[in-house]
């Protein structure tokens, strides 16, 4: 039972004490939940009328939620697809032997990592509206993708860099010993191995991207999942709480599957590694918000 090294195997007294803690904790939690439940039902927020749209009939889903979810997924997928190669280029550039490549790449990466995604999105939106002829249908998507790409490419650059650095030095040395050029070493020896090592971290970054699309809904007018709450709750009689809860649940399910997929990947890779070496854990790479708390 006591697999933890932090506490001893529990004797009768410790067990009794744990039971007391458990009971107190359960009571506190139950009291809180009961209070929330009572307040919500007093305010009529749990009325079946407010929740009915989501459980009887598919109208609410096909009119509001699914189109929003589709936009969320499109924005996330497009951002990932653009940010990944861009990030790889910058990550490799930071490892270059030439100062004039390494330093500018580092400056760009550090700059975009230091700025909030929201600021980048607001900037993108204004940029597209003032200087380009992108139609208003597409503009929010472009703005959201621009913000996400600029930020996430920088984070992915760090993941790529860490992935390559995590490879055993022998790989580079062996490649040099058989006379491969630097480019050849990178493309045929280092990158293929680093990519597999980075997969869990990349999938986790996808979670960050999915969450960040919601910024576009709340502040810009990107019609993603969170933005669907507004016409939906006005149509169903201000069922704001119900709508928000449903949308939050969809985000949790979506992102939790991605997170679980990432850790499954990581476990698989750790078990499977025979020759090459490191695997980047989803949260292993530093950098503000990489797999970590971006909005």
């Amino acid at each position, binding site marked *: 039972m*006591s697999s*933890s*090294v*932090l*506490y*001893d195997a*529990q004797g009768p007294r*410790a067990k009794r004490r*744990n039971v007391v*803690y*458990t009971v107190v*904790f*359960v009571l506190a*939690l139950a009291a809180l939940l009961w209070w929330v439940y009572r*307040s*919500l039902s007093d*305010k009529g*927020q749990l009325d079946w009328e407010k929740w009915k749209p989501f459980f009887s009939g598919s109208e609410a889903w096909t009119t509001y939620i699914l189109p929003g979810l589709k936009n969320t997924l499109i924005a996330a997928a497009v951002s990932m697809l653009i940010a990944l190669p861009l990030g790889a280029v910058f990550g490799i550039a930071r490892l270059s032997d030439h100062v004039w490549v390494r330093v500018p790449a580092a400056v760009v990466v*550090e*700059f975009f990592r*230091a*700025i*909030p*995604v*929201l*600021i980048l999105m*607001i*900037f993108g939106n*204004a940029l597209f509206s*003032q200087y380009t002829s992108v139609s208003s249908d597409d503009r929010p998507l472009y703005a959201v993708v621009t913000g996400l790409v600029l930020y996430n490419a920088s984070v992915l650059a760090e993941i790529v860099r860490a992935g390559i650095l995590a490879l055993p030095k022998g790989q580079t040395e062996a490649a040099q010993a058989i006379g491969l050029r630097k480019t050849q070493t990178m493309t045929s020896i280092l990158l293929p191995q680093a990519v597999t090592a980075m997969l869990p971290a990349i999938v986790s970054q996808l*979670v960050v991207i*999915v*969450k960040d*699309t*919601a*910024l576009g*809904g*709340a*502040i810009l007018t990107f019609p993603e999942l*969170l933005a669907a709450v507004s016409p939906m709750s006005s149509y169903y009689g201000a069922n*704001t*709480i119900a709508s*928000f809860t449903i*949308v*939050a649940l969809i*985000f*949790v399910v*979506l*992102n*939790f599957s991605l*997170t679980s997929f990432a850790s499954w990947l990581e476990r698989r890779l750790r078990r499977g590694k025979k020759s090459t070496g490191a695997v980047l854990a989803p*949260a292993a790479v*530093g950098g*503000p*918000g*990489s797999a*970590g*708390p*971006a*909005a």
Partner: protein
Amino acid sequence: MFDFLSGYDLLGAFWVTVQLTLLAAVGSLVWGTLLAAMRVGPVPLMRGFGTAYVNIVRNVPLTVIILFTSLGLNQTLNIKLGAENFDTINFRLAVLGLIAYTSAFVCEAIRSGINTVPVGQAEAARALGLSFTQVLTLVVLPQAFRSVVGPLTNVLIALTKNTTVAAAIGVAEAALLMKKMIENEAELLLISAVFAFGFVVLTLPTGLILGWVGKKVAVKR
């Protein structure tokens, strides 16, 4: 060149950003540590609670959490956090939302720090007869904290940037001011540059200073 700035309280907006950051940082450090303690503790129910909390909160967009504090806690449950004026209430709600969100990441950082403390440390402490709380607070956590200065710095920098989300419930911080300025003024690139610069000024020194601190306090093994 910078006359478009006149009439706007730029420093005031960034001061709100700083306040949000500092208050939420302290709060999430405390709550995050408690969550980490729950997750490694001997009471199964608390472990379950900690795990569930982290897994749910980490996977919800911060925007949803922030909007929920306002619409759910304030508008529905009538929680006012001791204030009557909506400006004050919204600021406090934003801090609360940021704490709820950030503490999940603090918890995970600290938990990874606990894993870096050699097993022998905890075993020796237990051999002395220390209880779980004593092992954790006297022996393990002090060492764990030293090794997670780096990850916690990243969380702090992310938190600084995440305060912009408070704009969603109308807290007058930097991002809200930027949006307002872009709507009213023509100098898009300059305005963006000013705000970008502001955040670089806030986050870059944090990273450098705490990076140095991290090296300084790291336990040499």
